[in-house]
Every structure is written in structure tokens, then in C-alpha cells.
């Protein structure tokens, strides 16, 4: 069996196993963890495109997650709007903010300065969430209604499981397509050597702005799903530690491998649960694991880009 065949088989087995979970073992606890894995993998995959492929280490990814969540929360809980407008707004608002902020910042700030500027955006937004009473302040917004599409209510854990799974898969496919496209190759070129890329006619500013906008769009979608699922959001879920958390998923799972980011997401969502028995030592073990992975396997657990279904990639 060729390596590609083997990968395909593994992929199918994993897919079938995943789809079967709600049928075979529908414990609410398990379903909840899987939903969180799907939602967070949308975040980590988009972050992988931004940081792993385009080389833009952004600490602000959680900010766009939060923007999406808050947009949905405000529009559905406070304004009573249905799913479709809320969802699209949650995808658009982060993209617009990213466009505006990126336009200003990317002109002159690169590398670590961009990282700091992205962190700055996150903290400023968080400050707004915390202080503006309409947004609920530190208590956040509660009472976000269930999703209702065409008369079908997506309220139970099982239905949300499949709903978020669809989005996770769509994200995976779109990110793969993006990476394999001309745009994706431009990002790789910029990441490797901005000057040389410029010589080849790639305008770094434009492509960086583009990836910033697109990935924040995905983050916003994840935020919308998160808001609907939890029915309640607060600024706590969108701190800089969330962004760092996402980077941990990337590092451990495998930089530049989208499947790796999913693996990393699964590890970091499941780890706190697995370590629950350790009580107070949980976070410490968490940090130790992170350090060990960094020291001994810095490229992550899924090191190379898997060639999915025969498509070659960078």
C-alpha cells in the first residue's frame, strides 16, 4: 500500500469513528468536549495559516474569536435576530476590524512588533468588553438563543456536534485550498524571505493584509459557534492566554500541518480533563508537557504536511 493510500485509510477510519461517536457513546460530557475541539480547531487551523504559513505570529487571534462571539451575542440575545444575519455579521465584523487595523499596522510593523500590536488590539477590545455595560461588562452576555435554521432547532449536544463538525471540516478544506493556491504560495514566499518575495513581484503588505482578514473571518465564525453553543459569553474566554493556548495547540500538534493543528487542539482540549485527577498540579503538568514538547520535538507531533488525497503542498 502506498503512503497516500495508507493515509487515506487512516483518514477514513478517523472520519467514521468521529461521526459515530454520538451514536455509540452519546455522553453529554464527551459530546461537549468534541464540540469544543471542533470549534477550537477552526481557530487553530486559521491561526496555522496566519502564523505557520504566512509567518505572522499574532497574539490577537482570540480577539477576533471574541469579536465573532460578541457580535453573535449582541445580535441574537440583545437584538433578537435569527441565525443567518448573526452568523454572517460574526464573520464580517472581525474581517473589517482586521482590515482596518491591519491597514494601519502592517504598513510599518513586522515580526515582533506586529505580535505586540496584535496583542494591543486584543487588550483594547477586551477593555471595551469589560467596561461597556451594554456588552455586559465582566459578567458578559447570557441568554443567547439556540440556532434555528429553516425551522430546525439546533439545541441538543448531538445536533451541535454535527453542526460544528461540518464547519470544522469546511474550515479544513478551505484552508487547504487556500494554502495550495497562488495566494498560499505567496504567503509561503513572504514567510521565507520577504525581500526575495518582493523581488518576485509579491507585495507583502497586500498579502499579509489578506491573510489577516481571512483568518480573522474564520476566528469570527468560531466565535459565533462558541456563543451559540455556550449560550453565554464573557471576556474571560478571549484573553491573551487564549491566544497563547492556541499557539500551544499549533506547537504541539505540528506547525504547518492543518491536521496537526486539529491533533494539537484535541490534545489541549482533552488534556485538562485527563489531568483533572491531578487537582492542583494540573496547570503545572500542562506547562511541563509544553516545555518537554518544545525541547524535544519542536516541530510538533505531526511534523510534515500530509498530502491529502494526492494533492501536493508546500
Amino acid at each position, binding site marked *: 500500500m502506498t503512503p497516500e493510500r495508507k493515509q487515506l485509510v487512516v483518514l477514513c477510519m478517523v472520519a467514521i469513528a468521529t461521526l459515530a461517536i454520538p451514536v455509540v457513546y452519546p455522553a453529554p460530557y464527551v459530546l461537549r468536549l468534541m464540540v469544543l475541539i471542533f470549534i477550537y480547531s477552526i481557530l487553530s487551523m486559521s491561526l496555522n495559516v496566519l502564523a505557520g504559513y504566512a509567518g505572522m*505570529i499574532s497574539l490577537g487571534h482570540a480577539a477576533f474569536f471574541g469579536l465573532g462571539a460578541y457580535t453573535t451575542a449582541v445580535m441574537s440575545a440583545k437584538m433578537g435576530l435569527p441565525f443567518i444575519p448573526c452568523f454572517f455579521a460574526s464573520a464580517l465584523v472581525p474581517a473589517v476590524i482586521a482590515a482596518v487595523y491591519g491597514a*494601519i*499596522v502592517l504598513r*510599518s*510593523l*513586522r*515580526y*515582533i*512588533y506586529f505580535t*505586540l*500590536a496584535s*496583542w*494591543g*488590539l486584543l*487588550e*483594547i477590545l*477586551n*477593555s*471595551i468588553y*469589560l*467596561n461597556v455595560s451594554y456588552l455586559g461588562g465582566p459578567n458578559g452576555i447570557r441568554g443567547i438563543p439556540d440556532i434555528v435554521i429553516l425551522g430546525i432547532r439546533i439545541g441538543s449536544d448531538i445536533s451541535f456536534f454535527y453542526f460544528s463538525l461540518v464547519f470544522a471540516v469546511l474550515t479544513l478544506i478551505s484552508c487547504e485550498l487556500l494554502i495550495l493556491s497562488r495566494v498560499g504560495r505567496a504567503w509561503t514566499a513572504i514567510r521565507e524571505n520577504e525581500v526575495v518575495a518582493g523581488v518576485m513581484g509579491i507585495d507583502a503588505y497586500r498579502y499579509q493584509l489578506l491573510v489577516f482578514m481571512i483568518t480573522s473571518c474564520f476566528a469570527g465564525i468560531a466565535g459565533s459557534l462558541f456563543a451559540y453553543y455556550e449560550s453565554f459569553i464573557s471576556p474571560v474566554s478571549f484573553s491573551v492566554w487564549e491566544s*497563547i493556548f492556541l*499557539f*500551544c495547540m499549533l*506547537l504541539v500538534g505540528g506547525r504547518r500541518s492543518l491536521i496537526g493543528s486539529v491533533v494539537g487542539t484535541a490534545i489541549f482540549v482533552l488534556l485538562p480533563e485527563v489531568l483533572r485527577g491531578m487537582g*492542583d*498540579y*494540573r*496547570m*503545572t503538568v*500542562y*506547562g*511541563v508537557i*509544553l*516545555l518537554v514538547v*518544545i*525541547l524535544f520535538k*519542536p516541530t510538533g507531533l505531526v511534523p510534515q504536511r500530509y498530502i491529502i488525497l494526492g494533492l501536493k503542498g508546500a
Partner: protein
Amino acid sequence: MTNFLEQFIASIVTGATYGLLAIGFNLIFGILGLIQFAHWEVYMFGGFMGLMAAWFLQANLVVVLLAGMISAGVLGMIIEKIAFKPIRSQSTDIGFFASIAVSIILQNVALKIWGTEWTAFPNLISPGSFSLGPIQVTKIQLIVLGVVILLLVGLRMVLYRTKIGVAVRAVTVNRNAATLMGINTDTTISISFGVASALAGAAGVIMGVYYQMVWPLMGGTTGLKAFIAVVIGGVGSLPGSVIGGVLLGIAEGMGAAFISSTWRDGISFGVLVLVLLIRPAGLFGGKSA
């Protein structure tokens, strides 16, 4: 008006301490290009070690300060050996995440040992204040300021008047060339880490003495502000970090006194972004991206 001036003086004092913290951070960044996120936890650890000295040795201020500095310095060197040396050859991004991992570990170990609440720092300086015209300056403020100035002057003397200082500066400028000159870069880096961390430990003790309390999460909150001070002053510039620290202390103190304190973090970061846009290298930074 007196209120304003007293708040101003208090801001300078806290700002000077931010500067002390920031300068250690800049030392490490300068020599390794590494964002030492765990620097703030070393600061916290130094504060707690000073506390231990005050409790168990019934020590006075000088001993407590030394205890904090030495233990923090040692901790810094251990961290460097375990977490940063093995990955030195790789891109600095990895180092950043390694330091985050160390930070998580240290923070949670401290939380486990000392709990989540703050612990009172014994009163080592007899209360008292002086009048400087119409305003009151407390003894604590003067002593804290004095210690910070002493440490900064000491650092400058070490860096510019001693052989090891020359070595540190050489390695900062160009590691390979320094090796060619016969400088043992590993030892020099270790020592720089130790010194920077010792300064952080001193800041920890100072903050403990000034606010009369230490708590395991103090690294996070104060560290963030010190980090902003680093960026404002200029990443890689030592005098810049002190000035950045003082400026931030003033902006924060005056801002908190006259603007709502819940907006403080947002304002600090707003200032950060503005500084980045106008002068990304900071006020005194020389090293560009």
C-alpha cells in the same frame, strides 16, 4: 495640587521599579534576542524568597533584598540552562513559547505553595515621612527610590567598568565575534541571565516592601506593565527601559487617579500601540526588527 504632586511622586516610585524589572528583561533580550516571558515569575519568586528571609531569619531590609536577589539570580540561571540553552540554535519564536511554558510552571508551583491570596510582607521600614515643601514623601518611598537608583548605578558600573561587563556587551553586539575574541559565550550568557534575574528579584522584594504584600500572580499583572515599559523605552535599550518604566508608572498612576481604573489596561495597551506605530523601536531603541 498637593494631591497631584504626591500621586506624581508615588507614580515615579512604582515607575522606577517597573524600570528595574524592564532593564533585566532588556538585558536578556539584548544578549539572546529572547522574550523572557518567565522574567515576571522570577520577579515574583524573588519577592517570595525575600519574604521567607524576613519570616524565618527575622532579617532586616538589606538581607531580605540580598536573599531575593540571589535566589532569583540562581533561578534565572537554572531556567536558562534547562529551557533556553537547548533551543538557542533555533528560531527565537520557540524560545518565546518555552519561556511561556516556564512561566506557567513557575506560576502554578507558586500558587500551590503559597495559595492564591496575597501574603503580607512584614514591615521592615519604620513608618515616617518627610515634608518636601507642601507635600509629604514617605520614608518607604525614599528608600525604595534609593535602592532602585543604587542598583541601576551598580549595573551601569558593572557593564562599563568591569571585564565581565565588556564581555556581556560584546556578546550582545555579536555573539560569533565575541567567541572569536576568546569570550566564553555560554558563561557570559549565564551570568547575564543571573544578573538580569537578580534585578528582577530585587524588584520583587521592593514591590513587596512597598505594597507590604506579595502574591503568586504578581508576576503577571506587574510583568505586563513592565513589558509595555520595555516597548515604550525601546526593546534592547537599557536606559530606555528605565525611562519607559518611569513614564509608564506616571501615565498609569496619574491615569488611575483621574480616569476610571477599569479602563487602565486598555489605556496602557492603547499607548503601546501608539508608540509602536509612531516609533516601533521605542524611544531609545536601536535594534530594529
